[in-house]
């Protein structure tokens, strides 16, 4: 209690010192109102909790789902401006079964926890790998995909082991991903070149700014299949993990609904259909059974 209070107080002073100067000093409290009036698309959050319960979401008629907008083929925006991909296919179904409109929020890897903890989205469906550290910050529902880490490199200099790297070789990672955390913890000597967004990391990798790119193996396999001249030298690194939807910590009603949804979707082999609709083009049929997790198991 006390610690929490101190935390809030110091934090409050910090922000108040910066932001509050305008409000207190210049009699411009009107600015907040005027500004708020111009804001759009925000679905009112419950003021005393950091999240919206299942009923509140249904009542509002809109659910905010955080997805990637630049991570093909899992979450991206197609040439007609529509969200698409494996995660989005599932999101669409959630919207349909809840009977609400979906408001997609474009997230970066490093923002995902933040979005949930500040209640700015209801669900994160952005290829979110379940890890112990993250489970302390958010609540994961049942998983819907298998994943491990992988490393892709150009054909001309395939990286097959992380121990072979030269002292100056840099590996590209995306800020806030499991690959970053894993390498930071287990290979502290490897130089990482970090990017905010998938699009930037991939372009930099294509441009030859790093010797290899480490990420979820799904992602690096997709990259090597879609782009000529690249090989996944290390197909599996670290532990086998799973990918699951996440909600704000403590949002039990939504979590339970999601778990039931994933279980019941298993009976109709929903995620296999999802794979065939969104991933088949990239991976072919070979990966279907290794990637897809049906009914949460």
């Amino acid at each position, binding site marked *: 209690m006390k610690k929490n209070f101190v*935390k809030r107080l110091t*934090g409050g002073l910090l922000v108040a010192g910066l932001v509050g100067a305008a409000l207190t000093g210049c009699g411009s409290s009107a600015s907040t109102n005027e500004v708020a009036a111009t804001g759009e698309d925000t679905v009112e959050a419950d003021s005393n909790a950091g999240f919206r319960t299942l009923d509140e979401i249904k009542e509002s008629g809109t659910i905010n789902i955080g997805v990637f907008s630049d991570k093909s083929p899992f979450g991206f925006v197609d040439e007609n401006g529509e969200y698409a991909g494996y995660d989005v296919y599932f999101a669409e179904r959630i919207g349909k079964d809840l009977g609400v409109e979906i408001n997609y929020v474009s997230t970066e890897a490093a923002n995902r926890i*933040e979005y949930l903890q500040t209640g700015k989205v209801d669900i994160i469906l952005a290829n979110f790998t379940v890890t112990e*550290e993250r489970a302390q910050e958010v609540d994961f529902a049942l998983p819907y995909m298998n994943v491990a880490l992988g490393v892709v490199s150009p054909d001309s200099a395939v990286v097959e082991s992380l121990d072979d790297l030269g002292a100056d070789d840099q590996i590209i990672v995306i800020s806030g991903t499991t690959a970053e955390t894993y390498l930071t913890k287990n290979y502290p000597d490897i130089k990482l070149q970090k990017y*905010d967004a998938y699009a930037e990391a991939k372009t930099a990798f294509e441009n030859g700014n790093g010797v290899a790119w480490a990420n979820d193996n799904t992602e690096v396999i997709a990259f090597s299949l879609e782009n000529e001249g690249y090989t996944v030298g290390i197909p599996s690194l670290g532990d086998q993990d799973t990918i699951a939807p996440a909600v704000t910590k403590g949002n039990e009603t939504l979590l339970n609904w999601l778990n039931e949804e994933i279980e019941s979707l298993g009976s109709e082999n929903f995620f296999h259909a999802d794979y065939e609709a969104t991933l088949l083009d990239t991976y072919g049929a070979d990966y279907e059974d290794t990637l897809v997790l049906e009914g949460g198991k």
Partner: protein
Amino acid sequence: MDKDILIEYLPLYKDALILTLKIGWQGIILAFVIGLIGSAILHFKVKVLKTIVGVYIEIFRNTPLLVQLFFIYFALPKVGIQVTAEACGVLGLGLLGGAYMIETFRSGVEAIPVIQTESAASLGMSKLQILWHVILPQAITISIPGLLANVIFLLKETSVFSTISLMDLMFTAKDLIGMYAKTIECLFLLVVFYLIMLLPISIIGAVVERRMRYGQFGD
């Protein structure tokens, strides 16, 4: 706020500060040089070069640094021009800053009464001599507050370096938030480090400006 976390993160922010300053100063020196050369070209109305400098100023003053960096770092390699992240940061900052520095120097030069140039000329000094011994020393002094404002502006602009993988202060904060979700601590350190970096420059700027005003009034 958790004190242990602050202490744990401190070295990372220190590294970021060093990187920010390193790239920042290189960029600022480049901007300074571009500013001097560019304003000299405008001052002497050198044909062709004058137009090039004019176009350069308009382009770099009317596009965001972020987009400039994106272009240099991500687009140019597609046509075979490879730049490292650090070089890109220095180059971007230098080119952007140069466009502002030229204007700052030029207004400094314009502030010097024409009679000084004429007197110097009548004493038999060459154009270059006039520039070097008469105009520049005064112009730079007059420009100091503007220069310092540009320095602060450029050091602030380093906050967009995260997009080209440079671990500056902003990126360090974002990265740590992404990995460990200690938002308040990370943002607090971020603010503190920007204060450490920029407050002294800002204060010096204010003092210099006041001094100079006295100087002018005393003349």
